[in-house]
């Protein structure tokens, strides 16, 4: 049975790069996604709206508190993620490496999914 891994994309807060920069990156990303799908490794992939669109909920006493904005106000946030299935960590890291190369200089965190 294959193991699933979450590949999280960390990106700096602020505006995305201009279209002339973003365009080729998204094209490369699309090509990588297709390759993942063709190889059977691809499970799921999404991009996210900016962290300013997030809402955080937390139960306290009998209430649920609601806050505007992302959970952690940092310099970086998760901009999207891909879930792949692989035989082992080396295989997952290889996809992560490809993703990091396409999205350079963003960091990719590879983490096994507990099942």
């Amino acid at each position, binding site marked *: 049975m294959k*193991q699933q891994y979450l590949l999280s994309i960390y990106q700096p807060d602020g505006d995305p790069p201009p279209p002339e920069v973003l365009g080729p990156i998204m094209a490369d990303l699309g090509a990588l996604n297709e390759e993942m799908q063709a190889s059977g490794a691809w499970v799921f992939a999404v991009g996210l709206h900016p962290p300013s669109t997030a809402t955080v909920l937390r139960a306290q006493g009998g209430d649920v508190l609601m806050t505007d904005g992302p959970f952690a106000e940092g310099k970086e946030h998760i901009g999207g993620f891909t879930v792949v299935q692989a035989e*082992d*960590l080396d295989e997952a890291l290889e996809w992560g490496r490809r993703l990091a190369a396409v999205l350079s200089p963003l960091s990719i965190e590879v983490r096994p999914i507990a099942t």
Partner: protein
Amino acid sequence: MIEEVFRAEYGRAVSVLTRLLGDIDLAEEAVQDAFTTAVRRWPVEGVPPAPAGWIITTARNRAIDRFRREAKGQEKHAQAALLEHEREAREVGDVADDRLRLIFTCCHPSLARQSQVALTLKLLGGLSTAEIARAFLVPETTMAQRIVRAKGKIRAARVPYRVPRDADLPARLEAVLAVVYLIFNEGWLDKADLADEAIRLGRVLAELMPDEPEVWGLLALMLLVASRREARLRDGGIVLLRDQDRALWNAELVREGQDLVRRCLRWNRPGPYQVQAAINAVHSDPPTDWRQVVALYDQLMAIAPSPVVALHRAVAIAETAGPRAALREVDALDLDRYHLFHAVRADLLHRLGEDPAAALRAALDRAEHPAERELLRERLRRLGLAAAHQQDHADDHHERDQEPHPDRHAT
């Protein structure tokens, strides 16, 4: 006797059992069970003709028993059946491969260097968590946690248990050699057990990967440095190479190291460890041919340039071109945080008839190892300046987690 077998065979047994059981913790448990049985039975029944095979067979039978006892679901039944099936199959045939697999798992690049070192010592060296903690001067609970976490990651993230593909081998081998050299460096001065363990691991690597010149280069480097161990310390302080009593050098280690260096030269596939071994081989054949040492450092700078290598090269330059030329090279280096940078400057200034006190104090402020600090204090004392040094911080020797210094031994 059992202790000897334990040291020599623990890693072998754990690696075979890891393949059979697919889990490092279960493998360790089974092997420890087997040694417990050995402690009980060998004194009565005598040591079996093939102790290593006995341990592996006993460990596997123990694991099967345990699976049967604990079997609740089908999965464990299946595992027990699998083991039964393998019972008569290859026993010790693939052992070499198994140990190699385990080494590459322990030194997987997804694990922090500290964890790689701890796992290698634990699983292949058979050292206890307490022993490893003592060697690296961290509390036992910290070390235990580090090892548990690393094993947890190996299991959950499925760090593979295999020898890397040829394409990945050079990079992966580099990590393995770095781990062994780090263990050696941690022990070279005053923890002989650790240095011996590193050499033992180096021999295992050479046996398992006889076609990798860098593996032999590392082994030669460690042997040559270890050959001067007895001469290296006097009254708690370091003795520099030029002041060492050569009668205290271990001639056998020198000979073996030099033989290996010659073998590496014939390969003509140089790498950083081989060149460092060659430099130490030159030093082991006094009086040192400094021109050759400079040429070797030039080669090292071409393969693996770093400011630390440049510093050592400058030390050799002082012998061939004089202290003034060497000082020019040293002053161009950005190594303010490194104690040896200041120690070398002090030495060169002294030879030029200038005041080395400030440089010696800077070195003392940055040196951590008690023996290195003692050498610097002694040099300050000789200048009659020891009393002037007020800010001498305590002799704490923190765990060093940086990469091993290329060649901290040659000078």
